[in-house]
C-alpha cells in the first residue's frame, strides 16, 4: 500500500515499476506462498495433497542443487541420493530408537547429508573439471548398492517400516506438509542470502571463469566444497520428512535414479541461478510425473517424458523459463530507450578525492628493497622452454617494465607469478615471503593483483558484481558478508568512479567493449588492494586518449604507494612510464636498466629485431644500431 501511495505523484514511474519483472515476480511469489500455506485447509483431496507434498520435496531438492549447479556451475546428477540418504537416516534411527520422536531425526538427516557431501566434495572438487559430475553418478549408483547389501543396517531390499504417525487421521498430512514448507522456506532464504554475499559472488565467478576467479583471491576448493555441502543439507532434511511421510523406505524407491532426473529437470526448466526457478520447475514437473505414472502407463512413458524433456530443454530452453520470461518483459519495458553501453566513459577523478582509504605517500618513506624477487623461474612445455631460468626484481614503489619480443615469455612469467600455471622450478619472494608453491588465491591474498592480456571479466555478472567478487583474504566471516550493497558495494563504486565506469555498474560485463572491460578489470584488481599490480598490456587495443588516461591512473596509484609490473609492447608508453625496465628474450632476462640504458643497449635491439635482421643482407650488423 505504501509503495502505491508514494508512487501516486509520478504515474509514469509507477507504471514502469509495476510492470517491471521484479514486481510482477514478487506479486506472483506472494500469491503462490499464500496459496501454499492455505492449501491443506482449503482442500483435503489426498491425491492433490500428495502431489503438492512431492512437489515440495522436489522443490527443496532442485533449489539445493541450484547452489552447486546454478551458481557454481558444477552439475550433480546425484542430488536424488541425498533425499534417499535423508530418508534412510530417519528410517534407520527411528526403527533403532522407537521411543524417540522421529521428528528429532529430521535435522540429523540434514547433518548426515552435509557430511557425506563434505567427503564427496573433498574427493572430487579439489580439482576442476569433470571428476565431480562423474563422482556424483558413481555415488548415486554406489549408495543404492550399499543400501541393498548392508542388510544389518538397512534391512536390504526388504526395506524399513517407520512407526506410523500418532496424530489425528483427519490432518494426517498436515505436519509433513508444513514441515516441508518450512524447510523450503529455509532453503530459499539460504539461496537468497548466498546470492547476495561474497560467497555467492565467488561461486558465480567460479562458474564463469575458474582460472580467473583464483587470481582474484577466491579459494576454489573451499568454496566449491562449501557450496556442495550447502546444496545438500536441507535436501537431506526434506528427504527425512519424505521418508517419514511414506513410512516405508527401500533402496529402489529411495535411491531411484529418476528422483535425480526429476530434480535436475525441475532446476533446468525453472531456470538455473534464479531464486524461484527451481520451485516453479518442481511444481510443473511433479504433476507431469503423476500424469505419466497414473494415466499414461508409467514405466517407459515416464522415461520418454523425462528424457525427452531433458533433451529438449537443453537444446531449446537452455536458460529456463523464468529467465526467458524475465528477458521478454525487460525487452518490452525498455523498448525504444537507448542502451547504456554506448555511453561515454567517465573522465574519472583522482582516487584520493573519492575515498579516504588512499593517500599520497612520501617517496623517501618507501624502503629501498625489492618487493618482488624472482630467481631461476623455469617453465617448459614439452621441449619448448617458455621461461628458462628467469630472474629479476621489482623495487618497492616502482613502476617496473617487462618487455621483450613476442614469444619471449612475458605472459608466461605473469602466469607463473600468479600460479595460473605452476612453475617447474624457481623461487618467488614477495614482500619477504616465499610464494612459490602456493595456490593463486593465497598469492592474491598476499597482495598480488593481475590483469589479463585478453580481459577476463565474468561475462554474466554485472560490472559492480565483477568488482565485489574479489576476496582480499580468506575467512568465513568475509564469505558471509553482503556484497551487493553496503560497504563492499560503496568501495567498489569508488573504484569504478575512478576508472570512469561507474555509470555502467549494472551492465553485464559481456556487453562492454574491450576498452571498457580493461578499465573494469583494473578496478576489480584494485579492489584486492594489492601491493603489487601486474598489468598485462594495459595499453594494448585501446585508443590513444584512453592510453593516456591509463598512464595517468598508473602514475596516480603509484603515488599512493602501489608498485607496478607492466608488460607492454607500446614502447613510448613503457619508456615514459617505467623505471627500471627488464628485457626478456627466450625466456630469460637479458637486460635491466633505466629507459635510456635499455634504448641504447645493442643486445636489446638485436633481440627485438632478430640477429638475422639486416636492412640489406650484406650489411654488417652494426648498421642496424
Amino acid at each position, binding site marked *: 500500500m505504501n509503495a502505491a501511495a508514494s508512487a501516486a505523484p509520478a504515474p509514469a514511474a509507477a507504471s514502469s515499476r509495476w510492470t517491471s519483472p521484479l514486481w510482477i515476480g514478487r506479486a506472483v511469489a506472494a500469491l503462490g506462498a499464500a496459496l501454499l500455506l492455505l492449501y491443506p485447509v482449503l482442500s483435503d483431496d489426498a491425491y492433490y495433497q500428495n502431489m503438492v507434498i512431492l512437489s515440495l520435496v522436489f522443490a527443496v531438492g532442485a533449489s539445493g542443487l541450484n547452489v552447486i549447479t546454478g551458481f557454481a556451475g558444477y552439475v550433480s546428477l546425484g542430488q536424488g541420493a541425498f533425499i534417499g540418504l535423508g530418508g534412510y537416516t530417519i528410517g534407520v534411527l527411528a526403527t533403532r530408537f522407537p521411543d524417540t520422536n522421529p521428528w528429532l531425526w529430521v535435522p540429523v538427516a540434514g547433518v548426515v547429508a552435509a557430511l557425506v557431501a563434505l567427503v564427496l566434495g573433498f574427493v572430487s572438487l579439489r580439482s576442476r*573439471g569433470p571428476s565431480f559430475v562423474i563422482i556424483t553418478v558413481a555415488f548415486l549408483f554406489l549408495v543404492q548398492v550399499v543400501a541393498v547389501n548392508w542388510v544389518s543396517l538397512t534391512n536390504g531390499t526388504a526395506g524399513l517400516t517407520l512407526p506410523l504417525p500418532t496424530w489425528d487421521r483427519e490432518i494426517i498430512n498436515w505436519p509433513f506438509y508444513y514441515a516441508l514448507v518450512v524447510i523450503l522456506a529455509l532453503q530459499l532464504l539460504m539461496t537468497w542470502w548466498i546470492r547476495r554475499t561474497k560467497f555467492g559472488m565467488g561461486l558465480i565467478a567460479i562458474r564463469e571463469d575458474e582460472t580467473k576467479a583464483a587470481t582474484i583471491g577466491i579459494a576454489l576448493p573451499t568454496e566449491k566444497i562449501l557450496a556442495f555441502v550447502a546444496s545438500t543439507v536441507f535436501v537431506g532434511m526434506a528427504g527425512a520428512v519424505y521418508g517419514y511421510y511414506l513410512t516405508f523406505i527401500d533402496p529402489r524407491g529411495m535411491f531411484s535414479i529418476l528422483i535425480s532426473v526429476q530434480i535436475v529437470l525441475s532446476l533446468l526448466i525453472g531456470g538455473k541461478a534464479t531464486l524461484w526457478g527451481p520451485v516453479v520447475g518442481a511444481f510443473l514437473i511433479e504433476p507431469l510425473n503423476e500424469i505419466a505414472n497414473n494415466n499414461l502407463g508409467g514405466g517407459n512413458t515416464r522415461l520418454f517424458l523425462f528424457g525427452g524433456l531433458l533433451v529438449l530443454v537443453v537444446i531449446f530452453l537452455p536458460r529456463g523459463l523464468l529467465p526467458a520470461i524475465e528477458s521478454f518483459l525487460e525487452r518490452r519495458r525498455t523498448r525504444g530507450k537507448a542502451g547504456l553501453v554506448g555511453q561515454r566513459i567517465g573522465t574519472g577523478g583522482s582516487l584520493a578525492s573519492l575515498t579516504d582509504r588512499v593517500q599520497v605517500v612520501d617517496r623517501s618513506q618507501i624502503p629501498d628493497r625489492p618487493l618482488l624477487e624472482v630467481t631461476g623461474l623455469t617453465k617448459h612445455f614439452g621441449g619448448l622452454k617458455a621461461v628458462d631460468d628467469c630472474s629479476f626484481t621489482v623495487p618497492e614503489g616502482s613502476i617496473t617494465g617487462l618487455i621483450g619480443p613476442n614469444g619471449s615469455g612475458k605472459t608466461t612469467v605473469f602466469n607463473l607469478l600468479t600460479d595460473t600455471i605452476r612453475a617447474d622450478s624457481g623461487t618467488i619472494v614477495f614482500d619477504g615471503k616465499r610464494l612459490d608453491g602456493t595456490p593463486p588465491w593465497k598469492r592474491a591474498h598476499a597482495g598480488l593483483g593481475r590483469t589479463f592480456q585478453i580481459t577476463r571479466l565474468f561475462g554474466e555478472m554485472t560490472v559492480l558484481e565483477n568488482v565485489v567478487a574479489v576476496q582480499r583474504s580468506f575467512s568465513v566471516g568475509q564469505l558471509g558478508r553482503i556484497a551487493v550493497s553496503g560497504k563492499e558495494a560503496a568501495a567498489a563504486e569508488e573504484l569504478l568512479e575512478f576508472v570512469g565506469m561507474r555509470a555502467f555498474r549494472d551492465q553485464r560485463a559481456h556487453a562492454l567493449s574491450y576498452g571498457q572491460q580493461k578499465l573494469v578489470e583494473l578496478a576489480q584488481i584494485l579492489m584486492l588492494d594489492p601491493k603489487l599490480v601486474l598489468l598485462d598490456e594495459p595499453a594494448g587495443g585501446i585508443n590513444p586518449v584512453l592510453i593516456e588516461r591509463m598512464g595517468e591512473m598508473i602514475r596516480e596509484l603509484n603515488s599512493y604507494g602501489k608498485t607496478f609490473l607492466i608488460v607492454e609492447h607500446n614502447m613510448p608508453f613503457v619508456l615514459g612510464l617505467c623505471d627500471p625496465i627488464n628485457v626478456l628474450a627466450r625466456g630469460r632476462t637479458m637486460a635491466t636498466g633505466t629507459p635510456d640504458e635499455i634504448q641504447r643497449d645493442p643486445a636489446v635491439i638485436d633481440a627485438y629485431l632478430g640477429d638475422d635482421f639486416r636492412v640489406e643482407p650484406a650489411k654488417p650488423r652494426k648498421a642496424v644500431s
Partner: protein
Amino acid sequence: MEQLVQNLVLGLLLGGVYALAAGGLTLIFGVMRVINIAHGAFLILAAFITYSLWSGLGIDPLLAIVITTPVIFVVGWVTYKLFVAPIRTAPMASTVLLTFGLALVLEAVMGTIWGNNSTAIRPAYGNESFIVGDLFLPKAQVYGGLVAVLVLAVLWVVLTKTWLGRAIRASAVNPAGAELVGIKIGSVAALVFAIGIAAAGAGGAITGILYPFVPGAHYQWIARLLAIVVLGGMGSLNGAVLGAVLFGVAETMTAAYVSPSWATAVPYAIVFAVLLIRPQGLLGSRLREDAVPA
C-alpha cells in the same frame, strides 16, 4: 593358487571388454569435451541388436559384431548430427545433461521394443570351457576378450597410423588450429562420436554373451565406464585401457574373495582413493589452460 591365476585371467579378459567400451568414452571426451552419459545405453542397445540377430536370424553372436558395430556407428552419427551438434559449443554441463536425457530415451526405446525382462544370449559354446592345465576358462569369455582386444587394436591403428587419426588428435589438442589447416572440425567430431559409440557397441555385443541384461542396466554400465575413465585419466586412451584392466581384475577378485554382491561396489572405492591421491587419474595430465580461455 590356480584359483588366483584363473581369476586373474578372467579379470584380464573382462578388462579387455571394459577397455573397448571405456576407450570409446574417453575418445569422445578427449576430442569433444563431452561426457557421454548415454554411452552405457548405446552399449546395451548393441547387446539387444546382437540378441535379435542371434535369436531371429541364427547368426553367431560373436560374428554378429560385424553387423552390430556398423549399425551402432550409424546410430551414433545420426545422434550427433541431431542432438549434440546444435550445442557443440555449449559448456560441458549442457552436454552432460543432454546425453543423460538421451540415455533415458534410449532406455525407454529398448524397454518398448524388447521389454524390461532379463535377456540373455546363449550360443552353443556358452557352457563350454577351455581347460588349460588346472584352469577352467569359459569359451565365451575367452572369445569375447580376444575379439575386444582385436577391435581395440584396430581402433589404436586408426588413431595413430592414419590421416583420420592425426586429424582427430589435432582436433583434440587445438580445435582452432586444426580448422586452420583444413580439418573440418564438425565432420571430425561426428566421426569421433560415431566411432566412440561404435566401440561401446562392440563392447556391448560381447558382454551380451557374457551376462544377461535389461534396458536399465545402462546405469550400472555408465557408472562403471566413467569410473574406469576417471581412474585412467580423462581423455587418455592408454589410461582407459589400464583403468579397465585394473577395474576388471578388481571386480573379479572382489566377486571371488569378498562377495559377489559387493563386486559392483568395491572398485568405486578404488576410484575414490585414486582421486584423493591423484585427481588427474593414473595417466592423465593437467592441461595447459592459459592459452585459450575457452
